[in-house]
């Protein structure tokens, strides 16, 4: 009994915890602003075909110093299900990229969500670290790789059973391609590293017996 609909349920369930690519890889300049949107999620098997779950969100960011950027978002797909979800966070530039050294940024984000049906809320702190390099004629493009983890604060899950996972780590690699007016983002994540993807209502596509692979596209406009 493989329900295509249940696949969607489960897929969204998993994908919600990694439903966006990295917001800020390199901190904005002081006073610089950006808005962006992204689409993508975990890859699941729908029938025999792989399908990328179409999770989407929009966000805005602001450089409060040359090293520190804050952002806030709104998750559009979640809202379609009556779940108001946002991630807010701060990204700090530890190292600027130099000739041979990559740039390093760290972030502390929080995903907060509440459903309009029961008012049940959840908060997930999400620390993140990324390393990146610039390339191109004007060093306008960025390639990056990083690691983040969602932190589950609930000790119990359904029916008062112990919550087995506290950390849901993900590894990502991506590129930011800049044109004179826009920036385009492509990112691939390995979601939920170490968490089994066997015997679930959903067939996740992953090279491993754990987690899922996610693919994301993003658009950024800086001001």
């Amino acid at each position, binding site marked *: *009994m*493989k*329900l*295509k*609909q*249940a696949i*969607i*349920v*489960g*897929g*969204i*369930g*998993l994908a*919600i*915890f990694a439903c966006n690519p990295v917001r800020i890889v390199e901190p904005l300049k002081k006073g610089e*602003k950006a*808005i962006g*949107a992204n689409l993508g999620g975990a890859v699941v098997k729908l029938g025999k075909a792989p399908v990328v779950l179409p999770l989407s969100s*929009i966000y*805005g960011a602001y450089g409060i110093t040359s090293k520190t950027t804050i952002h806030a978002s*709104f998750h*559009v797909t*979640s*809202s*379609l*299900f*009556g*779940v*108001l979800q946002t991630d807010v966070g701060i990204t700090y530039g530890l190292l600027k990229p130099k000739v041979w050294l990559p740039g390093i940024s760290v972030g502390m984000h929080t995903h907060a*969500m509440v*459903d*309009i*049906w*029961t008012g*049940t809320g*959840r908060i*997930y702190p999400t620390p993140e670290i990324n390393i990146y390099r610039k390339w191109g004629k004007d060093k306008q493009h960025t390639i990056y790789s990083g690691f983040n983890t*969602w932190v*589950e604060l*609930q000790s*119990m*899950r*359904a*029916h008062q*059973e112990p*919550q087995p*996972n506290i950390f*849901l780590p993900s590894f990502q690699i991506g590129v930011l391609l800049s044109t004179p007016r826009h920036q385009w983002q492509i990112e691939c994540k390995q979601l*939920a590293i170490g*968490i089994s993807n*066997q*015997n*679930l*209502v*959903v067939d996740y596509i992953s090279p491993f017996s754990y987690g899922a692979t996610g693919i994301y596209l993003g658009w950024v406009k800086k*001001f």
Partner: protein
Amino acid sequence: MKRELILVIILGLGFTSCLRLDDQLFNNKKIAAYAFESYTGTRELADLNGQYLIPDSLIHPITFTSSSSDGEATIYGVYIGAIDRVSTDTVILYCHGNAHHMDMYWSRAKLLSKIVPNHRFGVLMFDYRGYGKSTGKPSEENLYADTDAALQWLASRGLQSERLIVYGYSLGSAPACEISLGKKILTPAKIILEAPFASSQVMINDASGLALPGSYFTNYKINNADKIRSINQPFMWLHGTKDDFLSIKTHGEVVFKNYKGTKGVAVRVDNAVHNNLPSVMGYTAYLEKLRMFIIGN
């Protein structure tokens, strides 16, 4: 910039809607006619084709009416057994799983009718609203209403609660638990659940790895894990250890653990997946296990 930000936020909020997965959870299929033994489509326990045959004289297509807040629906079912002996035979009410319609489960139903060789067992199987030829649209409420209507059909034929057994498979575990709570016209004397759901919330928890509320995706509860706490009848639970759809650990074990009655029987079948437990167990052994549970004290 500020104006653009406000615009995207308003657009985003505009998307906020009442989209739920409730209507998408059912894997029902409409058909024009039932084929039962001669069905050539995909069916569960397909290796039973040609075995455990039921004489035509013991196959009785039936219809009855189900009422819910959605209105009335015509429910199609099949009674396997001597229809004039419903009041004196032991009857198994078979609540089938989520796939398609009764033809998918014909092999399972006919197998149950063979628990005792002399056919003193009747089996009533029916299609929930929206499945097979049954009219209407499926929902959690309608599953319960349709199963209640099946109980009323049996009661109208003179069946008493003490000779009613309910067997819920997969999705069918939800109505099986519901009618075992003792609030309907008949209360099953014993309950058998094969590969049951714990709840919709467990499905979400399993799929996400997080303790997310089920309400984020569906208004349905399908909360067998809580309902079973209020069920005191003898209870048999069967589950494949390699169930690839409803994990034995997070669904079946939780349901069985929450059973507070005094006669709980657990049958964990090594290497069985979601839909092949009787086959992996061996049909003879499967029937014997059921017979011992149903007939035993």
